[in-house]
């Protein structure tokens, strides 16, 4: 019994068939699950590049402001945050800052953009809805990945990492045409 000491040569006793079978099946399943991850890097369309750079928040904010200055098309009426429409295929900069995502973006469907995402202060969660794409944004790190919007409409970036008492007010926008 499991609450009493194990006596005799328990390490040498035969193992029952169904137990052996289960261990083998479970191991096989673990191998399949392992295989799926590298497989998706070749066959799937949703992989993170894992490209990242160290950068100071100030430097990143400056890069983003230069980017916005070039391509701003209008201002959001409610917040005054610029809406930026970069050319298809170009580099796109966006950062989180308590409690906003800056700037807003206007993109074209089925075109790819090289996103650079970082934070100006605390950690934030980049949750692109309703797609449900979620990224961890860490200050001092510039995350780079290529995003291809495959649907159109208005999308929100909701912050889903706690970043302070106003955290729930932190929403950004991406418009896809």
């Amino acid at each position, binding site marked *: 019994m499991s609450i009493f000491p194990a006596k005799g040569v328990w390490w040498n006793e035969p193992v029952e068939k169904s137990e052996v079978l289960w261990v083998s099946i479970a191991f096989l399943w673990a191998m399949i699950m392992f295989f799926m991850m590298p497989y998706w890097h070749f066959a799937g369309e949703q992989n993170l590049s894992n490209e990242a750079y160290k950068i100071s928040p100030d430097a990143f904010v400056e890069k983003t402001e230069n980017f916005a200055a070039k391509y701003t098309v209008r201002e959001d009426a409610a*917040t005054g945050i610029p809406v930026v429409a970069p050319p298809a295929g170009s580099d796109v900069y966006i950062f989180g800052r308590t409690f906003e995502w800056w700037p807003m973006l206007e993109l074209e469907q089925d075109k790819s953009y090289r996103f650079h995402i970082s934070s100006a202060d605390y950690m934030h969660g980049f949750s692109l809805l309703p797609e449900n794409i979620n990224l961890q944004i860490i200050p001092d790190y510039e995350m780079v990945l290529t995003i291809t919007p495959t649907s159109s409409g208005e999308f929100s970036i909701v912050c889903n990492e706690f970043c302070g008492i106003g955290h729930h007010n932190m929403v950004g926008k991406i418009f896809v045409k």
Partner: protein
Amino acid sequence: MANFRTCPDTGFKIDLQADKLIKWNAVTAVVFLLVGGLFGLLVALTRWPAVHLLDADLFYLALTAHGLDVLLVWIIFFEMALLYFTSAILLNSRLAMPKVGWLGYVLMLVGALITNVAVLQGNSTVMFTSYVPLQAEPHFYLGIILFAVGALLGCAVFFGTLYIAKKERTYEGSIPLVTFGAMTAAIIAVFTIATGAVILIPTMLWSMDIGLIDRVDGLVYRIVWWGMGHSSQQINVAAQIACWYAIAAILFGAKPLSEKVSRTAFLMYILFLQLASAHHLLVDPGLSSEYKIFNTSYALYLAVLGSMIHGLTVPGAIEAAQRKKGFNNGLFEWLAKAPWGNPVFSGMALSVVLFGFLGGITGVIMGTEQLNIIMHNTMYVPGHFHGTVVVGTTLAFMAISYWIVPTLWQKEMVMPGLAKWQPYLFGLGMGAAAIFMMGAGTLGVPRRHWDIAFADSAIGHVFPEAANLMMGLAGVSAVVGSLGALIFILNMVGTILWGKAKVPAPASAEPTPAETPSAATSYGGAGTMAVPGTFVLAMVFLTTFVLYYFVNWKYLAGVWGLS
């Protein structure tokens, strides 16, 4: 010299110091479950959109307190009780260094109080993960560090007792499987606490602002913090599974199908699970895919394999024992004739099933490199871990309490009628809450978020009505689950304070372990006993797992291209 008493129910020789330490740790644990559970209820009532109880600042404060009081304080105090129980009592030994045990207890208690005060003061609302550069007051970290040092002392007492028992030959053969499981937990705990020290001490110095450390890197913090945060969950899994085996033995006289396999499965936790912290960092910048895949597969899956083995061998051991008693009809007579009205059994059975289906499957899926993209930091995450640490670990601890408390205190339970229902209320209530949280998560509802209606926000996001419905149902279920938790707490505290003294039962109907014939206690290849019912259940589990796994790949394939 140590003094002993003999347990009238089990015949175990009980060191009086161990007895006292177990009682104090267990009672303290239950008190913190009450406190932490109340915070959880407040949080749940706030996230229920129609109720939206607390203000934003109080909500985040309550959430910080909830995470700390249940995940850290309740669980670890209870684990200390388990460590002393599985060493001194199960080995019929005196407890090593009882004074150190008491010092550990006091440090843990003082630490827990300090951190709670820090949180309630309002300037340490940083969640229990306390990600930098959000900053708490120095005593927030100090409390956690003291608590951890106390727990480390508890582990030292445990190892010391194992040593003494071996040296003084208080037992013959190898330590019991349950003690082996507890040892697994204690070994992982040492690693966990060391990792915690590496990250929390510098963070405390940073928050003291005395010029020693002026910056803590966010990514480094997350990597090291999860080295602790993830490993600590392995302590819980090991401890909870030790409870499963213990209950199977106590209620059914069940022997493990194979000592060898079960012990190897525990070893896999030590070898692999604690390395698997990268599944918390799958969408972080700056870590390579190779590392993420290696870490989540090699490390994680081999440990998952360990859990899948226990998932078969625990019910399998019960099936074998029941069949030996003659419940041999068909595939499931052994299960149908199990004591479903006994909370020790029903709590454990629900814990096995709910942990596997709700916590286990979803955890592995979330821990898949690419699948994490569609779940990270959504309500799916708290949904998952209420499947592991609440309806798994907490429920298992409740189940074993129904046996430990009346036995150690030698008292009758005050509310035996309610106790019958309690595991179902708590398990099914919190299980449903976990499912609805996960449902909300698949619709993108963020975790740790005060208002998904964005009423105060200049711009907002409109969630589908189904998301509000899910959050509402999660709220209702959480209320049911909280009621279950409350009944447990009242029953335990009531029994300890006002329970009638047990009259030593003349040859009770249920065989207690000491009365089990010794032939059955020494394990003798029960392995040759087939367990077809359990195997069928395991295949049902695997089928669910496989289907749900691939459903999630299909969801992923539908989202925007990322490369």
